[in-house]
């Protein structure tokens, strides 16, 4: 008779087998390699840079990953973020004597309106989320460009931008903690709350969820609004750091398309397969992608190596993921395809 495992050991094995742990291990190994070969590069400046990038990706993941789990996708989170930040910048110019937190409700109402528009197309009209949100992103981006004639708008409110330029121990930005708290809350919401479980049920089988008395459309609408608001938060964070809002602010913040980075992070963290990955997995995925690029640059690799390895890391890690899942399913005696096999693109599965 097999010995009953102690509770502690069971918990330990769950942690050791988790996606986040694997990704964190790879990250730590990479950092050790950098530490051995180029110890000078593990300095304050570089860490600050990495944290500033991660902060944005981490926040956007809070919007994209739940949508992916619920069977949707939002390409427009970045565009909505820059539009909301631009609105905030314009409001600051218009009302210079109003304290800036008083302007935030207007910005968030605007973001909710944009999210509702996304939900109108993707949920009510049942359009393909990928293309419809891409259209929305194109419209909003072009409107932002039109408004500012493709120029950035500087933010001069010192109490606002000091928020983005305050660092703990001279390394960790203040907003990074905001991101960590957000990821923790969303992660708990998804894994422990009823709403989170219902959302995952809708993502894996909308028909069954409907028959079980859930309302997938309402849930998706909420998640689209959430993604837009979260995008606005990321936009404000980026604005506070780079002291500029408007067209091209994401490129200036070092992340050309936050929705795309969040998608890659979500895929590495397993968020796409619904049942397995959680939000912290996506966060660790983002950390690993950044660390790979950082390691390569510090070790003096050419630019092309970074791009090549980013693609290769994605392909290899997801292939391994699927292979492991297949083996586990075979062991458990479950028949059929691994979850996610029928996915054509985020939010669309094969007929």
């Amino acid at each position, binding site marked *: 008779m097999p010995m009953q495992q102690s509770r502690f050991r069971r918990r330990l094995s769950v942690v050791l087998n988790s996606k986040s742990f694997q990704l964190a291990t790879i990250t730590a190994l990479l950092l050790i390699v950098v530490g051995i070969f180029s110890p000078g590069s593990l300095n304050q400046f570089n860490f600050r840079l990495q944290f500033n990038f991660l902060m944005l990706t981490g926040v956007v993941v809070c919007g994209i990953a739940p949508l992916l789990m619920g069977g949707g996708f939002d390409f427009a989170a970045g565009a909505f973020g820059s539009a909301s930040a631009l609105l905030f910048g314009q409001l600051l110019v218009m009302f210079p004597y109003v304290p800036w937190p008083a302007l935030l409700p207007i910005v968030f109402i605007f973001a909710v309106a944009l999210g509702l528009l996304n939900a109108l*197309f993707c949920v009510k*009209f*049942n*359009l*393909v989320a*990928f*293309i*419809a949100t*891409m*259209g*929305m*992103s*194109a*419209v909003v*981006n*072009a*409107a932002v*460009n*039109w408004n500012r*004639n*493709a120029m950035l708008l500087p933010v001069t409110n010192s109490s606002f931008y000091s928020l983005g330029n305050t660092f703990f121990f001279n390394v960790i930005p203040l907003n990074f903690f905001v991101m960590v708290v957000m990821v923790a809350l969303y992660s708990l919401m998804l894994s422990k709350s009823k709403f989170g479980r219902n959302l995952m049920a809708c993502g894996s089988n909308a028909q069954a969820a409907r028959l079980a008395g859930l309302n997938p459309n309402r849930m998706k609408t909420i998640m689209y609004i959430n993604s837009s608001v979260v995008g606005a938060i990321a936009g404000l964070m980026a604005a506070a750091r780079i002291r500029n809002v408007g067209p091209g602010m994401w490129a200036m913040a070092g992340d050309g398309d936050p929705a795309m980075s969040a998608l890659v992070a979500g*895929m590495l963290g397993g968020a796409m397969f619904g049942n397995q990955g959680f939000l912290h997995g996506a966060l660790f995925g983002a950390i690993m992608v950044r660390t790979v690029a950082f390691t390569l640059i510090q070790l003096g690799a*050419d*630019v*092309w*190596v*970074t*791009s*090549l390895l*980013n*693609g*290769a890391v*994605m*392909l290899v890690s*997801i*292939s391994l993921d*699927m292979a492991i899942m*297949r083996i586990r399913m075979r062991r458990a005696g479950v028949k059929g395809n*691994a979850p*996610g*096999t029928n*996915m*054509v*693109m*985020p939010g*669309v*599965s*094969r*007929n």
Partner: protein
Amino acid sequence: MSDKILDGAEQQFKRVHPLKKAMRTKAFPLLILLAAMVAFFSIFAPLYNGPHAQFFNMTVFWRILQDLTVPGFLTLGVALVLISGGIDISQVGVAAMSSVVLAAGTSMWGWPWWFCIILAIVMAAAVGLINGLLINKVGLMPFIATMGMNLMLGSVGMILSTNERGNIVAQIQYHSPELLAIGTHRFGEVPTLGIFMALMFVIYGIVLTKSKFGRTLYLMGGNRAAANLAGINARKVSYILFINCSVFASFAGMTFSMRTRAGGHGFLAAEQFTGITAAIMGGISFGGGAGGLGGAFIGLMILRTFGMGMLISGLNPFLAHVMRGALLLAALTFDYFNLRMQAKRVGA
């Protein structure tokens, strides 16, 4: 009793007039939209931008056809993959790589132009084969496999465009009279490559609707399991489609390179989703099994006619971009209402 059943069957499957049948396809409303757009810009452009801005003439039409060549090749390749239930977003990477091969081959390495063309096509086919392997052998989802491939192709482009001093050249200029002649050849006003692209659409359209191979694609996209049970080698077809898609992407990149007399690893980045968008607008659905090439071509025409119309009208370019995105959303939404109306008519 059997008569009764036959009667019922006859009523259900009574012959529909071909014209009526054509009117019920997804492409028909798009055709009306296109006609309305042409009519609108013919009136609007001279009014808004002065009498010199004439939209409705053959010069503009041929210009649109010439502009369509590059996105046309992209659409043709990806439309077939979409119909079979896959997706390919590595097209832009292949196109950029092909443009680099042409540019670097003729200028930096001194190879003959025809060899560069062949090399570009062979490399593109190899990429398509790898895509097929990743999807069919490794079992990755098409979206992820081709997205990773796209990232990796970017670095292949960078390696190829590294000059002898070790710098990556963003835009390699080259001078090759033959390639320029191929890219910009015209019969009178008619762009030759544009006609070639349109001809390809016709040929592939016929293959898709009339041949056994074409029907196989629809079956694969509609129900992969049923296709397997029907004895169709879905994997083999998938390899063919991905290779075909990459080769067409290579055509697009080479055409662009011949016309601009340059090549670069970041070329055509703005066209990342043009092909997919046009195909979806034309009635091909994600997940496969529906739509045709005629609709995709009309979708492409609408996108480019709208852009050209706004250019000739002299609208603010940023506003034009807003309108272009709005047109895409409007066309997709229109499709939704159209489907709902059809469902109501059938009584489903």
